[in-house]
């Protein structure tokens, strides 16, 4: 799995590409943990490149959401394809995440939250 990263002025965007399953989710989990340990508080995970996510992958998203509880931080998901959205819906998790259609909206949402 490849993982892209983009730093904007207000947030960090992490963009995994490919399958996020029990094999590859460890890599994503380590990267997210490293960034959060380093002090990142405003995170966008762009799922546009993700073709499949398993329950192991959902767990990584949950860990990130737990660590970035507002108001001291935020996690916004974007770019959910139909497959990824279905998995989130089936697990009953759609209500647990802030979700935006695309990266630009996700960043705007973070900006609105981060600024007092």
């Amino acid at each position, binding site marked *: 799995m490849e993982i892209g990263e983009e730093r904007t002025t207000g947030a960090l965007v992490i963009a995994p590409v490919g399958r996020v399953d*029990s094999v590859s989710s460890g890599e994503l989990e380590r990267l997210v943990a490293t960034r959060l340990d380093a002090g990142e508080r405003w995170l966008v995970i762009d799922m546009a490149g993700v073709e499949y996510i398993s*329950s*192991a992958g*959902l*767990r*990584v998203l*949950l*860990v990130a959401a*737990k660590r970035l509880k507002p108001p001291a931080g935020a996690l916004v998901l974007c770019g959910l394809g139909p497959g990824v959205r279905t998995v989130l*819906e*089936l*697990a*009953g*998790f759609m*209500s*647990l995440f802030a979700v935006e259609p695309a990266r630009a909206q996700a960043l705007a949402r973070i900006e609105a939250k981060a600024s007092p």
Partner: protein
Amino acid sequence: MSTLHLHVQPRDGEPFRHEVRGEAAVLGRSSKADVVLADRYLSRQHARLVLREGSWFLEDLGSRNTTFLNERPVAQPMPVRPGDVIRLAESRIVVADPGGELPPQAVGDGLTGGTDERLPESTIFRPASELLAAPAAGESGGLASRLRLLNEVHRALAAPITLEALLDLILDRVFAQLQPEEGAVFLRNEKGELKRAALRRERGVTGEPLYSRRLAQEVTEKGVAALVLDARMDERFAKAESIVFSGVRSLLAAPLIDSEGCLGMIVLSAKSRLHPFQEDDLELLMALASAAAMRLRNIAHAEETARRRLLDRELDLAHDIQMAMLPKAFPHLGGIDVNAALRPARTVGGDLYDVMADGGRVWLLVGDVSGKGVGAALFMAVTKTLFRAIAPGSASVAEAVARMNRELARDNERAMFVTVFAARLDLATGELEYVNAGHNPTYRLEPGGRVTTLPGPVDPALGAVEAHEYRGSRLQLAPRDAVLLYTDGVVEARSAAEEEFQTPRLESYLGECAAASAEHIVQGLLERLDDFVGDAPQYDDVTIVALRFLGPS
């Protein structure tokens, strides 16, 4: 010697020093041992040091993995002297000489200096392959002794040997043949970093034994052997710009290399040695290193196999425990026919089910923990236990599920979660009350052959959020109606052609089960899956629970 000084290197912990006073000391994993070692392969009370008539003895306390003194198993009490090495499972204890100098402690990896450090001008590099291919240069006496040494080494290496004993043997032969003042073996760890694994010194050699990181990099990454003829002749080093080479007269290093790559290096140094090392010595050391590398690789492979075998045994045990948690016999209640099956994909899995009588009602539970393996199995066991403790007597299914969720979400930093479908059937009325927490929908099978999914909202899987109001739904079952609960291992079962079973196949099968018994429904579905999957490996746990309501009792 009434006080014994120990340098303890536990497998799973930081090294420490310990002084044994009094007359005895127990070594073991137990917190009640006198010397507590963090090593999961140790027995709780593994071995004991005992003072008898002024001398210390080591005895094994019937440990599972025995105790070794200088790599010899301790069958009866054996005297212990400074310099001895005690090995318990994968932990080492070096007995130090309290009066003399302490054996050097590995500080970090035993390497120092930057990788950009310059090496002495007099350094000669020779590719390992060239040294191994070349016939021995020099006079025939050198050739004869080289052949004798290699023969000896090869013979010694043919016998079964531990890593420690092998490193000892390599250093033995090197010291006998090349008379260095100090010799060290560095090995790559799992992360590929070089760490000092063995060190030997002539008497009287002092100071922290450190070797140049730059030299180690050259030798191990380029696969070259190196000879530093005389560092003191080199102006820069004579001025002691590098503490690494200061005072070193001569140095010899060879990579431990085989066809699969480089395992580490062996390095020898001499400070006051009369004659510096020569190019002949380089060939000899390289030949020795090559023989040792082959054996080291074998040991690494064997250790990996042994570790895997141990893990397999533990997984088998975990599997037995997990299967024992699932009900095999179902409550003989008037008015229902119920059956279930669970097939883990790996030895242990994260699926679960339960069927439990509660007065005039019966509870059903099917769940699937995120992820696979031992972590999932533990979470499964907790979920199952909570269900048994919480569900009976609960006011509603939604309340029971909400309480289970609160318990599972508390301190759940790894965000494990379990999707469940929980239901309770009132045997007197046929009313089914249920909650879907992120799980596959349950099917209703009507006697006429109609197959539908139970309606209702989907709430989050358990463990994900601490406070959540779970929503229950109700459905009136008619006599002869059946329900089928399952996990996604059923619909995501994959054939050899990578095709998934999917819900249409499941629904079409269920359509044929209008009048079948619960056991027939479960077993028939397993057979369908077997036919579909064929010889392809099972990817996910498969769980099926079927219940038919026979009529108000």
